[in-house]
């Protein structure tokens, strides 16, 4: 199924139907419909998601994970602990493959420090590589990478959502890794390449990316859909604190 199968009107209709059908599970035994909702959204948004992944991968001249990796031999990283509640799940299995947790009386704790920073980064690099494999394709000739034009399979969409969940849950870990010695300076240095993306050079090397960049008018497009303080909105609304963490059941 291609994008042309979803004209704007049909897309609106579908979106309306999906949102209107969302229901909170009546009991904890019932699975939430959040997960299929996320599948639907990512399936429809795969092109733009692909552009964002491509932009993130190339904006600093090379993968930002590689830039960080170059600085990790001497990270001088303060040790911090993180908790990821939810029990056993594919997400936790993934974590355990890279950085086994330390069991405490209050549950599993994941440490991020100089000794295991490279393993954490390997996890991010692996997840990102998988995300790229689902959303980007290499051109048959040349070295350029472009966003896939065919709709991803259902299995791919499931993988994409799983990776998104993983990255989202680990974003604080990623933030901590960025505090490693020299990472900020390395990113700033690589930031010089930003200007290339608006230049003819970029237009030649990544014509589609340059086109996308010119359209969004920002190297990294701000997310206007959700503001960072949205969680506060829930407090104001006195939203019940039910678990929406259906990912843990699916991942």
């Amino acid at each position, binding site marked *: 199924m291609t*994008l042309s199968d979803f004209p*704007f*009107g049909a*897309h*609106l209709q579908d*979106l*309306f*139907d999906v*949102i*209107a*059908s*969302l*229901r*909170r599970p009546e009991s904890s035994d019932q699975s939430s*419909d*959040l997960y299929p*909702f*996320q599948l639907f*959204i*990512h399936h429809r*948004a*795969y092109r*733009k*998601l692909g552009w*964002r992944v491509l*932009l*993130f991968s190339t904006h600093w001249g090379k993968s*930002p994970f590689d830039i960080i990796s170059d600085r990790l031999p001497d990270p001088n990283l303060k040790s911090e602990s993180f908790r990821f509640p939810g029990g056993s799940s594919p997400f936790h299995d993934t974590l355990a493959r890279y950085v086994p947790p330390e069991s405490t009386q209050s549950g599993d704790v994941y440490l991020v420090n100089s000794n295991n920073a490279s393993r954490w980064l390997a996890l991010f690099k692996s997840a990102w590589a998988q995300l790229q494999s689902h959303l980007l394709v290499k051109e048959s000739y040349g070295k350029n990478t472009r966003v896939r034009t065919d709709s991803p399979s259902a299995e791919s969409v499931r993988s994409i*959502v799983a990776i*998104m969940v993983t*990255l*989202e849950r680990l*974003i604080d870990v990623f*933030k901590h890794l*960025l505090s490693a010695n020299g*990472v*900020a300076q390395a*990113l*700033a*240095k*690589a*930031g*010089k390449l930003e200007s290339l993306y608006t230049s003819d050079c970029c237009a030649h090397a990544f014509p589609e990316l340059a086109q996308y960049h010119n359209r969004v*008018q920002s190297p*990294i*497009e*701000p*997310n*206007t*859909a*959700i*503001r960072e303080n*949205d969680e506060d*909105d829930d407090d*104001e*609304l*006195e*939203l*019940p604190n039910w678990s*929406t963490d259906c990912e843990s059941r699916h991942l």
Partner: protein
Amino acid sequence: MCYIYPPVFNLAQNPQQAVVRLLQGLKTVLAWQTSSRHIHKKATYFGQRVDGKQVKFCLSRFCYHKDVLQSTAFDVDAVLPLLREWQAPLDNPYTRQEAESIIHRTLNAKVHAEAALMDWITTKEVGLPIFHVKFNYHQTHISRSRAIIHIRIGPLALARNAANYVGHSIISTSQKDSNSYYQVLMVPSILGFLPLGSLTVFCLNSEMSCLLHARHWLQVIPDTALLAPPQVMWILLCSHWEKVSTIYDECAENRLLGLGHA
């Protein structure tokens, strides 16, 4: 809006800015993940809190149907003209800019299958900049702990339901002329966020206009909070656009008379 990055040498002087950009980039990649969960939470909340069918009812009103009390099927052909209307809003240049922004992003949705309706729902920048100058409330007392406002409203049942709907409580009622007045107790935390949009819906549902003395009211609400209507509420407001326009005209007249917030 053109987003202009600082010169490269500024990055060198402030490397942390590069970290901020990187995190912003990752969050942008994760945008659908976070927004879809947010929408799910909101939609199921209102579906659970109010009525199992309320969300669908609210969304169906998005069709901009004249018969606002009748739930109607979602009509794409009715929605598209509504979207286009934002290209030429009535009289507010800032609204026009916002409208153009909406149209731009809506067209993005067409091209990239971005969830357009989600974007509408989660677009907090629109709505209240229009509505907060259109609707005002007679406010009799404000203290640090609470504010009491008077709302002229229709049947008591509607008032009570609406108050419950937004988590407020009616503390007294009175009669003046042919209208009922209800005092609604609002806690400060709500003051900063929800009530304006909610009460707009409240009043619109009762087909009554609001009283027009809001200078103090607006002063106690930070401007940023005014820009933050709850997403689903915004759909509600949108569905009542015709009535909003009508009442807006009335409010405009009163503003000219110095009765409302200018």
